[in-house]
């Protein structure tokens, strides 16, 4: 990420200096074609979203009348009924609890594990690292059946804490993998300096290393948030109590039920309720997020 910033900065200066250099007609054609293609692509992305937004204000009758007609009245009736009668409100709260706790725990555990693996040499450290890598490649589907019974045996099946711990466990390998390379790059002298100043291992980690790893932690946090917010299989298999539904499974249940009960207006509203908060957060933090993508995958 750092190198990326530097290159873009290095390039930013000449770009402005040379900005007035003449463009050939060929360049203009290429630019025009490029813009056209990118605009078409952008429309393919945006139109479905805008259409969903518009439809969320229509009544079910209007939806059946025509896909393009504007809503007769712009009001939030659909949103109210989605939030209350369809239970999106409670799913939302459940999701925030589960994802919130899982994120905090996985960040702490992942950072600790990655730190030890990256900064200490001991027999087996390599093996543990590969064990983590294996967890990244194996499909979660293979684990889902035994997981069901493990949770059942410890009494956490269909509970939020059970869901949280499974989220933590499956987000752990990615977190460790990502932060491992991050802690590797922190200079060794800093740890030594902390030790000379009399800081123990605990203090070195929490007061020196963790603050230095902030950019890496932020990137992992974003990825983990998106991953856990999206999670569908784990809750559907391990959390079948309607009162504990998270947003993704609640939405799936709502969508399959809407086929019969036909409150399509509310379904569209529920979709918008689910998408908008994340989209708004994304637009605010998009710089940070795109930096994370490059940092995370160029390793």
């Amino acid at each position, binding site marked *: 990420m750092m190198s990326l910033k530097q290159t873009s900065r290095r390039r930013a200066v000449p770009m402005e200096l040379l900005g007035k250099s003449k463009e050939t007609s060929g360049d203009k054609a290429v630019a025009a074609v490029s813009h056209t293609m990118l605009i078409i692509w952008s429309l393919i992305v945006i139109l479905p979203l805008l259409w969903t937004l518009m439809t969320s204000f229509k009544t079910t009758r209007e*939806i059946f009348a025509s896909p393009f007609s504007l809503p007769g009245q712009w009001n939030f009736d659909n949103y109210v009924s989605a939030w209350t009668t369809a239970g999106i409100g409670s799913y939302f709260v459940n999701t925030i609890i589960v994802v919130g706790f899982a994120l905090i725990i996985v960040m702490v555990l992942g950072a600790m594990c990655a730190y030890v693996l990256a900064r200490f040499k001991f027999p087996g450290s390599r093996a543990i690292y590969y064990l983590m890598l294996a967890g990244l*490649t194996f499909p979660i589907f293979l684990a889902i059946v035994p997981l069901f019974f493990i949770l059942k045996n410890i009494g956490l099946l269909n509970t939020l804490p059970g869901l949280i711990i499974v989220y933590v466990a499956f987000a752990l390998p990615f977190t460790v993998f990502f932060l491992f390379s991050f802690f590797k790059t922190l200079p060794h002298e800093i740890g030594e300096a902390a030790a000379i100043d009399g800081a123990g291992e605990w203090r070195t980690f929490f007061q020196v290393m963790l603050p230095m790893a902030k950019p890496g932690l932020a990137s992992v946090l974003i990825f983990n948030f998106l991953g856990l917010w999206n999670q569908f299989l784990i809750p559907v298999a391990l959390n079948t109590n309607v009162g504990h539904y998270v947003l993704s499974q609640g939405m799936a249940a709502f969508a399959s039920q809407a086929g019969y009960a036909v409150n399509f207006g509310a379904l569209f509203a529920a979709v918008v309720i689910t998408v908008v908060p994340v989209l708004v957060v*994304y637009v605010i933090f998009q710089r940070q997020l795109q930096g994370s993508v490059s940092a995370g995958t160029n390793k």
Partner: protein
Amino acid sequence: MIDLSSQVRPDSGKPAAIRSRRKKLTFDKVSFMVVFLGLPLAVYVIFVISPFVQAAYYSMTDWSGFTANMNFIGLDNYVKLFHNATFMKALGNNIILVIVLPLVTIILSLILATLVTVGGSSRGQIKGLKNSSFYRVVSFFPYVIPAIIIGIMWTQIYDPSNGLVNGILTSLGLDQFKSFPWLGDERTAMVATMFVIVWGFIGFYMVLFVAAIKGIPAELFEAARIDGAGRVRTMVSITVPLIRDNIQTAYVYMGILALDAFVYMQVMNSGGGPNNSTLVMSQQLFSTAFTKNQFGYASAMGVVLAAVTLAFSGLVFLVNRLTGGKDDAR
């Protein structure tokens, strides 16, 4: 590994042996290692590793889950599996997905990334298209939308009578699409579903490739241009070889996703689609386990799924290495 003898497991407490080489084991250090390594590992082993191992064992039993009865039946489940036409159909669909999805997604996102990064002037400094950050921001939108929501949205967009797609097509005068069931017709269900998945991921990989291309030293592009390479030639001969590791990573991620594909398929055609044309292994596994309670059989499906996934990743690495990629020393 060589200096293994001189190193002591940190929590086994033999200070004398290592005093010469490193600092003495204090309570601080021991407690640190136990908590920092032990806690995450315990969670990981209990909830990730042990289920994988158990699944491999269950796959060789006839366990139904709710009885204590569990007979070891060796490879019978696997034999049964490969004679199960529905599962083989699902496996075939997964293979179609794993071939088509990564290829289409990566090619399209590479093209878009190239347009953004080298669409600018051919004089002076190599530079990207002007005002291109808008496209990057917009392209990324689908990635922040949960897969389940993408599925629900597109099910409505494909809706035969009230959907956006048929609305646009009929208003263009194509009346044969008046109530065409995109997801309900055997010929289009799979293609329509794949389009949705591609739609969801192009932007993500585009952003990834843009970052990778920006990491290539500008001198290389300048040299290529001086040698007379045009834009297409530059992309094929310079850009793609230099970001091949990113492409490999993208290929593996996208392939693993294609072998799962559970969410999309489940939302858009929960029954497997017309004539099982969109049925995938993960859906079969899920219904076998949680509606039919054949846990042993379902675990065998999981093992097959895992085997296919590993074979796929291995193949991608192998192809990349054989075609001259740098070997994966990390």
